[in-house]
């Protein structure tokens, strides 16, 4: 620990001026302001020295807690490596460099203000701009005056450490596709508007007043305006339809493309040959509405990433030991056999053997279990573990991509192309039959009329194709699913895309991970066995655990409740082992059995975690800490078990089976001691027997299972934190609403079906006129937008009404802090 903070005595709640954290116990005073730790104070001092205290005026206590920050100088040394720099920066010339950092800490207006005033702290920075939603900051700096490393250091110093990881070094993915859709939409909208303008006189026979010259002019202008619609805005439909036909199948885009072509060519025929007005305004409107629907469906959650692999989580540099000298090298240059040094809170990047006598490894990102595991000399530490405590040296056994855990990504489940199986969606299944029926009716009409009048037959044929163009059909799906996705997003359930909803509706088997998913890291069951604790000894225990940030200490702290802690002396924390202190004449220590030399040395982790209490050399008792399920789970699982097949996959031993059976009910089939690969294999087996599996997991060890399942949901307690690749991300606090979400996905499917019904009714009416050859531009101009708009209104109102009825709209918004 650093210098002992000055303690202030007070009764009212004192919160840190910088981060707002409660700092009752040890507030540091400065400028009549309280700070919870020296870290927060340092940030304040830096800002104060540079007249940047407006930071605190914009929002109250805007900072982030600096307690756990490491202050090691050579941490960013890898940023001096030319290779690393070149991959990180976006642009560079002789004078300037541009770089974009992802800073998860950005959460309020003050953050934006401070980061955009970065030039006041570092004169070499010429420009900095924050994207609040994406939590990114773009910085331009003068290469001569400052370096990437010093900027990162500065950011880290003021509490905004950028997240730089291995995947940042890879290729940048662009979001160009989304922009193209907007351009297409803009063009369609522009042309549609102007075409309506020129077509309107036709509907009211105004052209006769204006004279025939105008009528022709208007028609030709319409053709010119229709060209960009057909040859630019509609290109995606043609492409998709062509691909489908080449694969000998029919998707939704086939009838759309057919409709566009017949509308366009028949209009050209009418204008040039018959001298009539054509249906070009209808064509423009159709494309415009279709693209609006497509755009609406493309809602994405920018801050969330649904395809992170282990690379997004591993550091990009590691300290390598070369003959007792430290050198920071990029992880990509790490070889088997290297000796590496891993410090407190750092990640072990590759499967390695421990060379130090002991280590304490936290595998929380891997398994979800946040209580560190002790490791002895010579034992293997898997990649993905985080060292807690003193620095350790390790001998690398496998390259970072070949480890026990990372090997998962070499599995075929990850190599198979993310083939968007949109063919499976309901709309596409229907469209096959739809197209067939339409063609049948069209040819029927052609044949029937051809006996008397060939030209009437052709007109009936094209009319059918024009009028049945499935605009309403094609719009019901995107609008319904887009709406459902927004409603889910409000409730803390974020989907990768709208196809997930249709898959969710077809799920019949649910698989849960245990640790971190069903059980909450912060909700532990603590029980005490041993001598009765007096008030005084309870106070001592409370005071002692207050000093530690170890998860077990936190659990005991919560268990001890509102006991007033005493003031202890000589507090010492031995990382990974325990705590000791003295109070008056007594000595008190808490820790593992091994550390205190008490209890059974039999160290099979079968009974969960134990913390022993020794006061004055006497063994008083033991705290047993076992995980406990999240709130609402004990209700949710039995309820789900009524309609779904439920499985539980856990990497742990089965010591908690009885408790889980009791909480989750007997209908859950449980599988323990599952390695990441056996989880994947388990899901595979179930999928192969024709089950539709939904996997709910959280750690990296579930990554394979999440990928292999039909729908993988990653549960996370902080949505801006790490979560493995998945189809959806669910806020941990909302897990108990899962049945509601599954239910609502099914409701969504029903709404789509109902709107299909609505659209078929319109089509039937249209076909009734079309087969008789009675379709006129006016009828088209009325029927087509009317059907589209009414379908859109119907789906929007129906989804929101259903969400309201099920109470999904009331669930409070998740704040981004």
């Amino acid at each position, binding site marked *: 620990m650093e210098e002992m903070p*000055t303690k202030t005595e007070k009764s009212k709640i004192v919160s840190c001026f910088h981060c707002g954290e409660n700092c009752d116990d040890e507030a*540091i*005073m*400065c*400028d009549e302001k309280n700070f919870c730790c020296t870290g927060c104070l340092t940030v*304040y*001092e830096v800002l*104060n*020295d540079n*007249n940047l*205290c*407006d930071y*605190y*005026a*914009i929002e109250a206590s805007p900072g982030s807690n600096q307690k756990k920050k490491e202050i090691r100088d050579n941490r960013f040394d890898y940023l001096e490596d030319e290779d690393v720099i070149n991959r990180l920066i976006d642009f560079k010339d002789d004078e300037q460099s541009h770089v974009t950092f992802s800073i998860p800490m950005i959460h309020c*207006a003050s953050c*934006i*203000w401070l980061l*955009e005033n970065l030039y006041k702290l570092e004169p070499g920075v010429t420009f900095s*701009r*924050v*994207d*609040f*939603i*994406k939590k990114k900051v773009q910085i331009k700096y003068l290469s001569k005056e400052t370096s990437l490393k010093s900027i990162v250091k500065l950011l880290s110093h003021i509490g905004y450490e950028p997240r730089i990881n291995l995947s940042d070094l890879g290729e940048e993915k662009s979001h160009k596709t989304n*922009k193209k859709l*907007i*351009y297409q939409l*803009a*063009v369609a909208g*522009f042309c549609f*508007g*102007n075409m309506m*303008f020129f077509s309107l006189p036709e509907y009211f026979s105004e052209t006769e007043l*204006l*004279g025939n010259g*105008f009528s022709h*002019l208007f028609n030709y*202008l319409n053709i010119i305006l229709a060209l960009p619609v057909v040859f630019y805005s509609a290109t995606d439909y043609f492409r998709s339809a062509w691909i489908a036909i080449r694969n000998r199948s029919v998707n939704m885009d086939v009838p759309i493309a057919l409709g566009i072509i017949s509308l366009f060519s028949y209009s050209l025929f009418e204008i040039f040959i018959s001298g009539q007005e054509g249906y070009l305004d209808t064509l423009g409107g159709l494309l415009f509405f279709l693209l609006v629907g497509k755009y609406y469906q493309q809602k994405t959650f920018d801050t969330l990433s649904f395809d992170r692999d282990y690379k997004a989580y591993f550091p990009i540099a590691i300290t390598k030991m070369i003959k007792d000298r430290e050198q920071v090298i990029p992880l990509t240059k790490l070889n088997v056999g290297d000796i590496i040094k891993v410090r407190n809170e750092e990640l072990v990047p590759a499967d390695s053997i421990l060379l130090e006598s002991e280590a304490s490894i936290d595998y929380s990102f891997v398994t979800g279990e946040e209580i560190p595991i002790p490791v002895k000399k010579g034992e293997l530490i898997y990649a993905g573990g985080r060292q807690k405590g003193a620095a350790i040296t390790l001998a690398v056994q496998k390259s970072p991509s070949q480890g026990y855990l990372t090997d998962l990504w070499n599995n075929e489940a990850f190599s198979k192309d993310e083939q968007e199986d949109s063919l499976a969606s309901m709309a596409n299944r229907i469209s096959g039959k739809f197209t067939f029926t339409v063609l049948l009716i069209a040819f029927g009409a052609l044949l029937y009329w051809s006996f008397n009048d060939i030209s009437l037959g052709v007109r009936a044929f094209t009319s059918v194709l024009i009028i049945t163009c499935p605009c309403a059909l094609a719009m019901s799906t995107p609008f319904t699913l887009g709406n459902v996705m927004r409603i889910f997003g409000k409730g803390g359930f974020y989907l990768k895309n709208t196809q997930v909803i249709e898959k969710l509706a077809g799920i019949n088997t649910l698989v849960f991970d245990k640790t971190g998913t069903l059980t909450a890291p912060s909700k532990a069951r603590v029980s005490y066995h041993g001598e009765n604790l007096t008030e005084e000894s309870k106070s001592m225990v409370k005071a002692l655990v207050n000093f530690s940030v170890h998860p077990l200490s936190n659990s005991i702290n919560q268990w001890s409740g509102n006991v007033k802690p005493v003031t202890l002396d000589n507090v010492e924390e031995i990382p990974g082992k325990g705590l000791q202190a003295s109070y008056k004449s007594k000595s008190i220590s808490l820790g593992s059995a091994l550390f205190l030399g008490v209890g059974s040395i039999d160290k099979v982790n079968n009974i969960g975690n134990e913390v022993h209490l020794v006061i004055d050399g006497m063994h008083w008792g033991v705290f047993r800490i076992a995980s406990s399920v999240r709130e609402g789970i004990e209700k949710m699982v039995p309820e789900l078990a009524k309609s779904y097949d439920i499985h539980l996959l856990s990497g742990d031993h089965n010591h908690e089976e009885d408790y889980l059976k009791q909480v989750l009910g007997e209908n859950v089939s449980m599988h323990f001691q599952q390695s990441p690969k056996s989880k994947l294999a388990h899901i595979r087996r179930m999928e192969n027997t024709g089950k539709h599996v939904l996997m709910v997991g959280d750690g990296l060890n579930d990554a394979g299972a999440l990928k292999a399942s039909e729908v993988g949901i990653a549960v996370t307690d902080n949505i801006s934190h790490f979560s493995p690749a998945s189809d959806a991300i669910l806020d941990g606090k909302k897990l108990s609403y899962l049945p509601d979400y599954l239910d609502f996905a099914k409701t969504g499917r029903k709404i789509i079906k109902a709107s299909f019904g609505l659209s078929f009714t319109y089509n039937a009416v249209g076909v009734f006129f079309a087969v008789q050859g009675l379709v006129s531009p006016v009828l088209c101009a009325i029927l087509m937008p009317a059907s589209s708009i009414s379908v859109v209104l119907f789906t929007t109102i129906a989804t929101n009404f259903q969400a309201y009825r099920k109470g999904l709209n009331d669930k409070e918004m998740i704040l981004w802090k």
Partner: protein
Amino acid sequence: MEVIFVLIGISLVMAGGFLWLFFKAMKGGQFDDQHTPAIRILFDQKTKSKANKKTPKKKK
């Protein structure tokens, strides 16, 4: 009535101009971030902070 030919020309040019401006704005990144500028605009008023001149010292 021939004036309508001129008016149609003008209206098309104007509408096309707006479309072009929209494209330009899109390319220039004006629509990339729709949230931060709304916050940023509030910063321009200088908030007077009281602690401006004090130097930090630790109180014992």
